[in-house]
């Protein structure tokens, strides 16, 4: 779960990492008061879970409280990557002499945590890695021991930093690594870290992501930051269709029938499971089809759960047909899914034989499942037909209708 900049900075402040003076504001009036309180020039930054804020006009500078209020008004009304900001951060503007980059994340290849550090902060770090590898260090460390500061020192010294800067940066990077481990994060990044004209070094912007699977272990922190227990914070806000699907899934603990993402096509998909959904979604697109949604079913959902998801998808405006497809299943029962989708179609007011473009779920209890489909005239194929061929048939069948 991603944190906003102002939340990440609260976490950094608790870890003793130096920061510019700042205030989180939700209205232009609050922004003016904050600018007055800070005194002198300020920067007003959109609090939105998206990169590229500067380019999108979500970061502006002001010399007076009046100007700060004006900019805050504009930024608060400005969506970035289709996301509305939750507020603005009004922060003292500091003259920066040098920028650094520090991030801690997991390296699945080394299977360890890694500190990425650069003395070319403020720009795209992947570009630095490609074009200026000597300006970037990667330092792996074990999660089985308490964090030792020499590891942070190694990361900073790895790009040639020495003297007082090495000491100050070691403290910041070490603090960041401890926060990363203590808070079960998948990413803890400060970009840029700024060295000011007076030689002091502070964190200017921060980005943190706590692992969803571990969020339950950090409820006190989340509460302190004012993060609600249900907040998901995906890369974009959920649509009504997605929220409804989430309700179908959470209303019944048996199996999974959810993880739905809305797209704007005409072919509704009831597909599964994790890998099967990715494969089938690609296959539908490769066959020229336009999916109305991504979703995942599996783990043997009940008849009513499968029916409710089917009903929801069938009733979406623009959905002409639905395709019900999975890889060869072992735990999910074919007959239960078959019964569920047929029931869902009928309850939504459609003829399953017309509405279901294809049913391709081979595996356990398939004979019983196929018997149900036959009875209702639903087109189905068995395991001798590949997933991509089934997807092609679904697309063809949908076009025939249209």
């Amino acid at each position, binding site marked *: 779960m991603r944190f906003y900049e102002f939340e990440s900075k609260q976490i950094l402040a608790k870890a003793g990492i130096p920061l510019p003076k700042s205030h989180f504001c939700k209205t232009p009036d609050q922004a003016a008061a904050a600018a007055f309180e800070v005194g002198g020039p300020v920067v007003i930054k959109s609090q939105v879970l998206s990169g590229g804020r500067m380019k999108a006009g979500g970061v502006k500078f002001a010399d007076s409280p009046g100007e700060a209020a004006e900019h805050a008004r504009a930024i608060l009304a400005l969506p970035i990557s289709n996301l509305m900001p939750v507020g603005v951060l009004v922060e003292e503007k500091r003259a920066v002499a040098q920028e650094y980059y520090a991030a801690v994340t997991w390296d699945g290849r080394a*299977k360890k*945590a890694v500190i990425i550090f650069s003395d070319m902060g403020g720009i795209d770090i992947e570009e630095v890695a490609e074009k200026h590898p000597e300006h970037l260090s990667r330092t792996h460390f074990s999660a089985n021991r308490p964090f030792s500061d020499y590891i942070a020192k190694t990361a900073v010294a790895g790009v040639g930093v020495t003297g007082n800067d090495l000491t100050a940066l070691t403290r910041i990077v070490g603090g960041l690594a401890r926060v990363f481990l203590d808070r079960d994060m998948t990413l803890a990044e400060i970009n840029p870290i700024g060295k000011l004209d007076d030689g002091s070094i502070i964190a200017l912007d921060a980005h943190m992501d706590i692992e969803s699977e571990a969020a339950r272990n950090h409820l006190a922190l989340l509460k302190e930051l004012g993060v609600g227990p249900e907040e998901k914070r995906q890369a974009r806000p959920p649509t009504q269709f997605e929220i409804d699907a989430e309700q179908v899934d959470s209303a019944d603990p048996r199996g999974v029938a959810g993880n739905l993402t809305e797209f704007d096509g005409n072919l509704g998909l009831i597909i599964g499971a994790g890998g099967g959904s990715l494969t089938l979604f690609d296959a539908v697109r490769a066959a020229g089809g336009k999916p109305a949604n991504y979703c995942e079913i599996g783990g043997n959902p009940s008849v009513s759960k499968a029916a409710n998801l089917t009903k929801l998808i069938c009733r979406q405006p623009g959905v002409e047909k639905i395709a019900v497809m999975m890889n060869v*299943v072992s735990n999910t029962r074919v007959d239960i899914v078959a019964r569920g989708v047929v029931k869902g179609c009928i309850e939504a007011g459609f003829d399953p034989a017309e509405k279901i473009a294809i049913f391709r779920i081979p*595996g356990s209890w398939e004979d019983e499942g196929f018997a149900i489909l036959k009875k209702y005239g639903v087109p189905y194929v068995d395991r001798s037909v590949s997933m*991509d061929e089934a997807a092609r048939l679904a697309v063809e069948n949908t076009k025939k209708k249209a």
Partner: protein
Amino acid sequence: MSILVDKDTTFIIQGITGREAVTMARECLDYGAKLLGGVTPGRKGREVHGLPVEDTVRAFTDRTRVDAAVVSVPPAGAADAVFEAIDAGIPLIVCVTERIPRKQVAQFVEYAAQKGTRIIGPNCLGVISPGKTRVGGIGGAAESTRRAFMPGRIGVMSRSGGMTVEIANSLSEAGLGVSTAVSIGGDAIIGSTYAELMPLFDADPQTEGIAIYSEPGGRAEYELADYMARSGSKKPIVAFMAGRFMDEMPGMRFGHAGTIVEGRADTTASKIANLTAAGIIVAEKIGDIPRLLSERLGK
């Protein structure tokens, strides 16, 4: 021959009294696997399908040889169960539990490496060598497992449990069959990657070719490409990359925990280019895998 497991592999299930583990135990026994029993703290003296339940892993390892452990314990206790199995000296641990925070996975994976313990998973379905044994729930009921997994010539490695079965089934239908199939797990950090299992397949005379299922996220395919260049491995590999649509949607999470595009190298396009450069055949369609392998095997 097979890799990781064979017909004599003895194993226990940690968390054996859980609903899914009870089913898994039934399916393993029906398949002829040498399941010894299982562990659930506080349940010593109970039985599951006539097999003993103990409080500790040591209760088994003190009296008999245990070649493997399946960890089917809820996320909050899964890492603890893995540490217990490592310290009891069990050489192969198959962790099927989903949703273990990656810090804990990194911790037990690092400890296992120091102790010389092999970990498969987490978030996987297990390992099967068709006709010999299966360690884990892979394939489901014994009868459907026999149908989808015919003994044969192809090794399978997959980040998705369900797609392990799908690919094995297509290889069986095509008459190629499977030597050993490993559901390696869908998380960002896993115990055994493609590149780490390849030497075992390379050394296995039964395995003539390898089928791989992969997804966006992570760098495991680069590690595999490096292995191919370094080792001079000659066995043909056909890989399939799912989730091509995700290249257009960085930051969105679909499928497994490890499946998220966070950097340029995580995209399918980048991975496909890298695999192809390493001499690995990338199948455009999932259904093409058996044909592409048959062509390379020339029989």
